[in-house]
């Protein structure tokens, strides 16, 4: 699925496979598929503890350092697969949040370089999840329940998963079409009334190519226009940090007030990371009906059918977004109980269902 549908790997491709070492079975399967496709695997298995050790006690210069080894990882691959899993989702708890923010800011030019290569058609990227105990634990499930959930979310139990995703793609394309040409979007839900300008922005159909599992339509809103407030329904972990009860108030596109019931300090550090961190880089609607319960794992939560999410920080140039930041933090708001989406004053979705 990842190699044939998501990334469409062909002969001669250089395929970066980046993920935690615990995803070893998936590494092996992807290497088989990549090699059989005539491409060249470029393996980067990581160790959570080593990643944390790199930042613990590091000087400012060490935190900010970009080496040739880092550059090669964004310049060389024509396809890149990121595998998300952790040995412990709180593995970064020993690293001060300002250090994490500084590292993310230092990595920003590399992200931007890869995005530019993607936009130029030189590279493609996909992020996927490998079921692990840490994510299962955060989701309140056993590993086998979590495996079932993860593989069901990708419709990998279907007789022909690729056929399912082609159908899902059509369904989502219709929604993206509906939003195209819309100027203003208003999101109403509990403790939420947020207005975004999306005029002339391009809506993308996330149908399993850049994320797997997938299921959303998204764009980058006009940077200076977001106003109102939004409360995020689900707990989240971001870069190994626990955050819950986030509420943001926007004016002129910028976060002017923020609160969180847990992880408020971390949230503040992230917002202060750089100039773009307080602006939205994404607004999106989740459309994967196989995912119904929050799991504390953004990859899944943001796809829940009937939710919306916005991301602080980096925008998507291919959608017309211009915001740049080392941050791209998706926060999810549940619209399934009383939520509404208005497009230029017209109700287009109620209780999480498109009308």
């Amino acid at each position: 699925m990842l190699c044939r549908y998501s990334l469409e790997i062909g002969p001669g491709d250089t395929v970066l496979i980046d993920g935690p070492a615990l995803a070893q079975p998936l590494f092996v399967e992807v290497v088989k598929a990549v090699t059989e496709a005539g491409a060249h695997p470029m393996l980067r298995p990581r160790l959570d503890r080593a990643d944390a050790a790199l930042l613990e006690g590091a000087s400012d210069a060490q935190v900010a350092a970009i080496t040739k080894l880092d550059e090669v990882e964004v310049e060389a691959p024509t396809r890149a697969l990121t595998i998300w899993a952790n040995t412990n989702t709180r593995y970064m708890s020993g690293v001060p949040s300002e250090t994490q923010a500084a590292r993310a800011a230092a990595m920003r030019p590399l992200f931007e370089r890869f995005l530019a290569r993607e936009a130029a058609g030189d590279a493609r990227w996909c992020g996927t999840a490998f079921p692990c105990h840490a994510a299962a634990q955060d989701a309140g499930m056993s590993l086998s329940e979590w495996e079932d959930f993860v593989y069901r979310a990708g419709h990998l139990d279907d007789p022909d998963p690729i056929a399912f995703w082609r159908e899902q793609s059509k369904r989502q394309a219709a929604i993206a079409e509906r939003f195209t040409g819309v100027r203003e979007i208003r999101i109403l839900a509990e403790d939420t009334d947020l207005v975004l300008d999306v005029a002339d922005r391009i809506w993308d159909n996330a149908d399993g190519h850049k994320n797997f599992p997938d299921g959303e339509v998204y764009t980058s809103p006009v940077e200076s226009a977001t106003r109102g407030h939004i409360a995020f329904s689900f707990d989240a972990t971001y870069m190994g940090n626990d955050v819950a009860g986030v509420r943001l108030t926007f004016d002129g596109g910028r976060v002017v007030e923020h609160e969180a019931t847990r992880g408020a300090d971390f949230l503040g550090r992230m917002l202060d990371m750089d100039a773009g961190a307080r602006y939205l880089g994404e607004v999106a609607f989740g459309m994967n009906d196989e995912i119904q319960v929050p799991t504390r794992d953004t990859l899944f939560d943001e796809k829940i059918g009937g939710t919306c999410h916005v991301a602080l920080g980096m925008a998507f140039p291919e959608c017309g977004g211009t915001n740049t930041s080392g941050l791209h933090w998706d926060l999810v708001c549940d619209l399934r109980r009383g939520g509404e989406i208005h497009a230029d004053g017209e109700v287009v979705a109620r209780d999480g269902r498109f009308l």
Partner: protein
Amino acid sequence: MTDPRIERLADVVVNYSLPLAEGDTVLIQGPALAEELIVELVRAATRAGAIARVRATVQGTDEAYLSRASDEQLDHLPPWSLEEMSAIDARISVVGAWNTRELTGVDPAKMARRSRAAQPLMAQFMQRSAAGELKWCVTAAPCEAFAQDAGMSLDAYADFVYRAGWLDTSDPVAAWKTYATRLSKLAEKLASVKTLRVLADGTDLTVGVEGRTWMASKGTHNFPDGEVFTGPVETQTNGEVRFSFPAIMGGREVEDVRLRFEDGRVVASEAKSGEDYLRQMIAMDDGASILGEFAIGTNYAVEEFTRQILFDEKIGGTCHMALGAGYPDTGSTNVSGLHWDIVCDLRSGGAEIHADGEPIFRDGQFLAEFFAEDLSVPA
């Protein structure tokens, strides 16, 4: 809690073997099972002011790739690997495995083909190392697979590994520094030798070493360490050698290797088992039938043959030679995709090494009239 010997190992590698300087970019590579050691190496490197990057490996990907890759894929040397090699200031390679026989199902011709394709990378590595631009060290993490090959439990094997690095002594760095001075004197002493002759059971081999540089392996490029080595004159190896220990490569074991050399080249080879593999490796390329290294093991804290070359070639009182690539800093000009060290025990039976006709080494020890310094572990 981390075994304090792991922290000490990381400390010795980072601050003695390399040593790392502020601002150095150091690549730390090793199997994911060596996480404890890799994490300690990252910590020690960061404390030293270096920029560490980690490249872990996971079990099974090499086999998955090698068993499926076409010739075209195997011949492809990624340009980025050369870019990386030219950019790093230091490299630490941790060896360890889940299963030392993991690649035994892969066609040796494919492995040879990949090694051949990687030859420019190896050449660049050796050139930068010889020019003093690249500091590097190979070390080992105790693991079940190595322990099993050594015929030991993991705990017994860990004791063996840390004892071999003298990490159970009160000040390992001081001990290695004292030893380094002594070993350097041995290398100086050997520098004036023109011809070495090794005499042992089934062995009467003459190796020309005139004009070549002897290196004292004092814990810099390998850790644990303890050997003196040079690159023999490519055209002067003559006679026969019988290796008392099996030759091991890529999880394959070749037993009772006997080689006959004429004017530097292997002209006949036989083995009790694995003979086909031996011959295939020797025929890999032009340089594979020529010695790239001749060495004498001088770490007397390593006594057991454990099937890991990093340790076996250091056994005090043995000699080893490598077929294939030589180290340019020894004066060797031999180029090959192969570098296969094979060890010969000289600790008993009246085995001797002669230098220009005079005996200098007998039954595992240098003779006092040639070299009087103590090479045992400094107290």
